[in-house]
């Protein structure tokens, strides 16, 4: 009984890998014919899982730029030419891989963090505090979750497009809509919030924020109230309870909510593609799309494969590290079980 308790605390990937593996302890063993039958099924599933992965990995290690005309699932030779080329010059535009990476990281980490910080107090209020408008306000927060990002893009485009910095004649700086160059003078556009990573980040927060509130509230609901009640008896007020008890208890889920934001926005495509026009602001996800989209025929396939592997890696690493919390947070914590 005790060991089972300890086991549930482990990371589920560890749990998944180690659970029930000892057929010997139970004393029963599988008849050989069933063992063989099940092994065949397992291997068939294994092959189907590995098929696309091996295909793309093989392609990425190929020194040739064309796709093979027959099926190749095991690299004939390991060549890092494609990786090197992608890292040196990822697109036809004068933008380095580091810049693309920086843009992707800036957007996904920035949006994840911003949503988390803004959401946490609201999630606490919805989970623990009693107030008149609770139901109505909660519905208001969750309503935007039903709107896909593309549904809000036009108004956000217009809103962010209004904030521009212009250089007027005579080296004056005008910040629209607060100041303008005066008269009919147009001035030179220096900065357009809509066409910047900051603006896209703000637009992405619009949908990330309600999700963060929802996810955190779901988790806070599962924390037993006894500790907070004990603190209240000891004379702690709501603020003290929040900062000194709830925040430390919720720390793991805060991390998970942040990483869910990171994973989701690492591959964000809609908003970035609609808002950004300058290649220097492009992200890795946009670059991957460019490789498969209209310019597909001119793109060397080994480079495309290498790029796919590179885009997948950060998310894969985060996911494997936080497997338990992510799966748990999405199914039992997020929606009340």
């Amino acid at each position, binding site marked *: 009984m005790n060991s089972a308790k300890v086991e549930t605390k482990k990371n589920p990937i560890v749990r998944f890998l180690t*659970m029930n593996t000892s057929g010997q302890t*139970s004393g029963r063993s599988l008849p050989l014919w069933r063992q063989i039958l099940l092994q065949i099924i397992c291997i068939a599933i294994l092959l189907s899982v590995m098929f696309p992965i091996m295909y793309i990995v093989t392609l990425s290690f190929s020194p040739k730029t064309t796709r093979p005309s027959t099926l190749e699932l095991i690299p004939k030779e390991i060549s890092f030419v494609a990786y090197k080329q992608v890292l040196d010059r990822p697109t036809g535009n004068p933008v380095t891989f580091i810049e693309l990476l920086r843009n992707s990281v800036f957007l996904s980490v920035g949006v994840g963090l911003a949503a988390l910080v803004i959401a946490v107090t609201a999630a606490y209020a919805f989970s623990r505090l009693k107030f008149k408008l609770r139901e109505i306000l909660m519905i208001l927060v969750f309503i935007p979750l039903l709107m896909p990002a593309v549904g809000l893009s036009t108004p956000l485009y217009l809103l962010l497009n209004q904030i521009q910095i212009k250089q007027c004649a005579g080296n004056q700086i005008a910040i629209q809509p607060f100041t303008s160059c005066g008269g009919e003078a147009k001035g030179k556009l220096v900065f357009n919030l809509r066409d910047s990573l900051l603006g896209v980040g703000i637009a992405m927060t619009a949908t990330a924020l309600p999700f963060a509130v929802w996810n955190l509230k779901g988790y806070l609901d599962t924390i037993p109230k006894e500790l907070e009640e004990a603190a209240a008896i000891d004379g702690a007020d709501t603020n003290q309870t929040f900062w000194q008890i709830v925040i430390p208890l919720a720390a793991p889920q805060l991390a998970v909510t942040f990483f869910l934001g990171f994973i989701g926005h690492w591959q964000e495509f809609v908003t970035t593609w609609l808002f950004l026009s300058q290649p220097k602001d492009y992200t890795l996800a946009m670059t991957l799309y460019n490789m*498969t989209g209209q310019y597909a025929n001119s793109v060397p396939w080994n480079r495309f494969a290498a790029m796919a592997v590179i885009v997948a890696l950060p998310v894969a690493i985060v996911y494997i590290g936080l497997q338990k919390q992510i799966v748990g947070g999405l199914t039992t914590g997020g929606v009340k*079980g």
Partner: protein
Amino acid sequence: MEIAKSSKKKTQWKRASLPYFYLLPAFLVMGVITFYPLIYQLIISFTNFESKDLLLGLKSPDLQFIGFKNYVDIFTAALPVENFNFFRVLEFNFWWALSNVMLHVPAGVLIATLLNTEGLWLKRIYRAIYILPVVVPPLVVATVWTNIFDERYGAMNQLLTSIGTYFGNTAPVYIRWFEDVKPPIPGFLPGAPLTLAYYAMMVANFWLGWPFMSVVATGALQSIPRDLYEAASIDGATGTQQFWGITVPLLRPAMIPAAVYGFTLSFNLFNFVFFMTGGGPARSTELLVTFAYNLVRNLRWYGVAAAFAVIIFVVALIVFLITNRITRATQNYQEA
């Protein structure tokens, strides 16, 4: 006396208003970047908003209020867009989400049960590898599978060719997965013909979807007490009877939220569908979200797109209310 009364009142007021201070940051930000755009979207859904109005917005002199014309146009397929029928897209969208979940959940449960078999060799290795699809971003999965289903160089046709050669058929297989508009099984879904592209997408999304369900099922399987199975086998229950009588009912509490999550995820799977088929061929695999993207990005009919977004919102609200009844997501701690 007076002072004590007023300070008591003050603390009361403070206590009553405290929750609103906790909500303030979120609502300030959402007011500007979420609620304002939602209302704006609602307003321009009743106008003929186009690219030329982008500069001045609602102040644009060309902007006209045209009542429910955008909505009527969408519902009656009066938009000058080829192959667009709202109800067909809606039907396909629901079927897409439903058919995915109907395959992913049973497959996930079965494979989790398979790996739970006592005495199975190499369990650890299988578990480690079966998890891989979960960790690859859908964007990458879609681009990779598009490539696999390529007509000439795709691995799928090459695989079918090698299987064909094995059975004595030397002709190379050239299936046009993403171009063929003729449904392979006519009349399978009345009103929304399912093209080969749909099946290609199902294969790819199946690869992506079942491992997650399998992880959830594995966690739930672990919490089923071993004694139950032992008692059942003493009573003479077969493996199949144990599966239906013990495993399935006890997995249900874990699998239903997972299935609801999977459904909503598939319903709005923009990245995946957009990167695999872009809604084609002939809009046969178009989802509501991909068509909304088309309206904004390619057609630039912002008024129509706004009306479409409002419609998506209403559809999503209905889906939410139904699934919410199943999972009771908004229930708070006290009510539980």
